[in-house]
């Protein structure tokens, strides 16, 4: 009986903890939305520099990793399909496979993962450090809304970066796939890209854009939320780790939901 009570209290504690987390996150999102009321007091030039720096850090600096990874993914998929597809007599569907695997699923997901591990963790750590150094408090004392000055530019930068990175990921993966495919099968470049163009629908494009926008909003919001959480400098690594894992979890759920909505 005593054990049962302990178990029940443990489960209840966990559920309440998760529920409180959800409610706190909702309040945080609401506070961001409310901060848009004071947008009229915000000078764009004051956040312009932040947006440029964040876009450079999240987008341009990530570009070499994205190019390398996308080329390897595109090449791997082509190698697998070139060796396996002829056994089933469907070697003409290589373009379709690239579109389905890379453009629809792997491209947005891989881009999201790279941005989370690289920029998401950096955002969380930066804001956590600023919180510990009372920089956020100083902003509030000066009458500057930290949601507008800290979170909002990061959301814009993340949306821009993820949108551009996803498109570049797809394009490089297709080129990588084409270069690899030339080693075994001679396909004219225009024929290859025409097949890709035929396989790629406007639905795929809308899904990719929706993923880039939703990831671009969610990644900085979750990372900023956990970045503002630490109450002491010893909690910084804990919340940075939490920010990364929770964002990853959310991204996978959002990816699955969008895929179900568009393709099922």
């Amino acid at each position, binding site marked *: 009986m005593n054990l049962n009570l302990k178990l029940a209290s443990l489960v209840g504690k966990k559920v309440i903890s998760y529920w409180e987390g959800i409610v706190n996150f909702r309040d945080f999102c609401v506070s961001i939305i409310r901060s848009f009321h004071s947008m009229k007091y915000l000078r764009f030039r004051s956040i312009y520099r932040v947006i*440029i*720096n964040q*876009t*450079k850090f999240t*987008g*341009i600096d990530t*570009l070499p990793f994205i190019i390398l990874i996308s080329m390897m993914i595109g090449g791997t998929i082509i190698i697998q399909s070139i060796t396996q597809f002829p056994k089933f007599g469907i070697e003409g569907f290589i373009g379709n496979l690239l579109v389905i695997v890379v453009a629809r699923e792997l491209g947005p997901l891989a881009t999201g993962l790279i941005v989370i591990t690289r920029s998401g963790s950096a955002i969380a750590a930066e804001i956590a450090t600023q919180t510990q150094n009372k920089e956020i408090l100083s902003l509030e004392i000066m009458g500057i809304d930290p949601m507008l000055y800290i979170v909002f530019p990061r959301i814009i930068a993340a949306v*821009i*970066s993820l*949108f*551009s990175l996803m*498109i*570049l990921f797809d*394009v490089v993966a297709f080129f990588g796939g084409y270069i690899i495919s030339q080693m*075994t*099968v*001679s396909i*004219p470049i*225009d*024929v290859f890209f*025409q097949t890709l*163009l035929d396989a*790629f*629908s*406007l639905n795929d*494009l809308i899904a990719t854009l929706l993923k880039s926008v939703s990831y671009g909003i969610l990644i900085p919001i979750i990372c900023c939320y956990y970045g503002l959480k630490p109450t002491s400098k010893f909690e910084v690594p804990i919340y940075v780790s939490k920010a990364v894992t929770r964002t990853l979890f959310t991204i996978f759920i959002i990816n699955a939901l969008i895929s179900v909505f568009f393709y099922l």
Partner: protein
Amino acid sequence: MVKFEKNEIRVGLFILIPGIILLIFTTLKLGYSIASSTIDIYLKIDSLTSVKKGTPVKIKGYTIGRVVELKPVYKPTLHFLATMRIEREIELYENCSAVILNQNVIGDPAIEIKNPEKKGEALINHDIIEGIEYVNLEAVLQDVHLLLSTLTGTVNMFKDITIDSRNNLRVLVSDLSVSVRKLKEILDDSQKDIVTLLSSFRQTSEVMTEISKEFKKNPMKFLFEGKK
């Protein structure tokens, strides 16, 4: 003039390049083209014996374009892609047929395109269709030559069979004459034997007649004569 920092230019390019790619893709996907009033359709062919640069492309006898380029494709097996530059206004559908025909006895080829009865998706720039029939004068001559050689072979075979049959008939007739002769000899020999046999029968009958007469006269004497 407004001066931009290095990072600003980088970010600008980082946004512009994917934006342009997206714009081009959307434009192509929606079927628009910034190109001329023609589209290029590829015709997949097995051999280059008839199609060449400048070969007209026709629909119902009306010329709608020409072959502008021929490219070999080495894998998986050697075939060729003929680029047909066709007027954009002409509507062709993906399941149309492209027949390579001879226009006249000299053998000038033309590609005749026939739209299907049930229309599928419209062909767009850089689509591929397959040359489903391939007829030219050389091919016809080759076929005729093949037919004549087959016919010659058949006639020769029939002739051989006839010669063999004639020999066999001759042998058969000679064998038959020998057989008839042998039968005649047998019959001749048999005739002599029959006369002898008949005379022997006659003698036997005479002896039997005498015995019967004797038996009738003195049956007991006949039976017991010589017993004592």
